[in-house]
């Protein structure tokens, strides 16, 4: 299992990547701070403070971009600069790819935990059950990493894959109606109810914090189904492209 031992070094590399850190940790912290100060204690229609809604959505939304780290490392190590060096090592590149994915997922979860702690401690945001929130964050970051890897493997040009990953992140946020309300279209509503990972994750956390554990499970299960589908696609596309 020497491939798994590389996780430590991937982790060290990730912790030195300050730009990613600024984008995935600094920006959300600033955004959350500004939003929380602006929104104050205003209560929404359903009785939960708007702040709880927005902050949870923001933290989950940033998880959609967590896959970009995995994607970049896989590209650098297995397709670009370090490709030949890694191929000459006596280890399984596929497993190495998986360990990068694992490291990326863990990194993204860690950022999520920092954000959850920050929002709970400073702004007293209600996340419901912490363990449940952690589970949902784990699901989200796994999904994002896997989806981004599918993009990396399915498109020849990495630049396009990067753009696709942004389309995935921004598109889901857009469809969830965070920028502006979406038109009341049956197709969009259905997509938000059953497919959009951001809304699934949010509904899951929202249900659990208002006491509907079984519905929470349902949404988490839907999210897991998405992960399984994406993983299947990852295996299919990865088999063709892996060096």
């Amino acid at each position, binding site marked *: 299992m020497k491939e798994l031992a590389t996780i430590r070094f991937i982790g060290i590399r990730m912790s030195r990547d300050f730009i990613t850190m600024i984008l995935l940790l600094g920006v959300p912290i600033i955004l959350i701070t*500004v939003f929380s100060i*602006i929104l104050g204690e205003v209560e929404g229609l359903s009785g939960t403070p708007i702040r709880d809604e927005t902050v949870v959505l923001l933290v989950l939304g940033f998880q959609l971009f967590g896959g970009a780290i995995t994607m970049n490392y896989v590209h650098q190590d297995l397709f670009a600069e370090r490709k030949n060096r890694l191929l000459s090592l006596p280890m399984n590149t596929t497993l190495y790819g998986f360990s990068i994915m694992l490291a990326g997922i863990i990194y993204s979860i860690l950022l999520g935990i920092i954000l959850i702690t920050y929002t709970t401690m400073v702004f007293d945001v209600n996340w419901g059950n912490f363990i449940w929130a952690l589970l949902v964050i784990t699901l989200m970051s796994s999904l994002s990493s896997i989806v981004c890897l599918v993009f990396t493997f399915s498109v020849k040009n990495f630049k396009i894959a990067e753009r696709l990953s942004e389309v995935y992140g921004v598109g889901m946020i857009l469809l969830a109606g965070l920028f502006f309300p979406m038109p009341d279209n049956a197709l969009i509503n259905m997509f938000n109810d059953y497919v959009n990972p951001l809304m699934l994750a949010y509904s899951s956390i929202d249900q659990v914090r208002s006491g509907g554990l079984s519905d929470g499970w349902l949404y988490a299960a839907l999210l897991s189904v998405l992960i399984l589908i994406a993983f299947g696609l990852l295996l299919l596309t990865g088999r063709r492209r892996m060096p």
Partner: protein
Amino acid sequence: MTIFRFALKRILRDKTNVLFLTLFPIAAIFLPTAEDGWPLLPLGYQYFGILLLFVSIRLTSIMIEDRQKGVVKRLAAAPVSHFNYLWQNLLAFSVIMIIQIIIIISGGYAYGHELYEPWNLTILYLVFMFTAISISLAWNSLYRSKESSFLIFMAVIVLMALLGGILFPVEMMPVVFERIAVIFPTYWLSEGIEWIVFGEDRGDFLFINGVLLLYALFFLIIGSIRRIS
């Protein structure tokens, strides 16, 4: 005008660029008008300032690329002055963005959006466009690689939009933020939009544009210093 022509060619050769430059303003035309009275203009027009910032950082990235690849060094040895290089590039960027502004204004007019005063809106966007280009020029001069410059600027754009009152009315924010907002060019853009909807006093509009132009001049001076190494 060789550099100008070449800059245009370089930008338009990139397919993603072409897509990015045409699709987004067209999509912005079709965004709906907000129902609860704010933003005052249709959403696409309210957020167009953000788009202008994005486009300008993307366009000016070819100058950072020149520095990365050593083109600036070769230019220094060639019989072309830095001033020529600068203004021809900037002209190319402006031409592209002016076309975008024309697309969005005329498109909105044809689509039937309530734009209040389309001509003044065009002027406001034009002035803000100059500010956006010079801000990204100055921003780029701080970086060595275009990727990191672009990524961090993305975060800065979000912050400027948020604190400058494009995403939220400034009045909603706490007093401290309301005061800080004045330093962001985006604040002046949203003030300008407000003038276009409600404004009567011509002087206010001139003042807003003057502030934006001052910002443009300031950042242009910072950004235009030649950095060879």
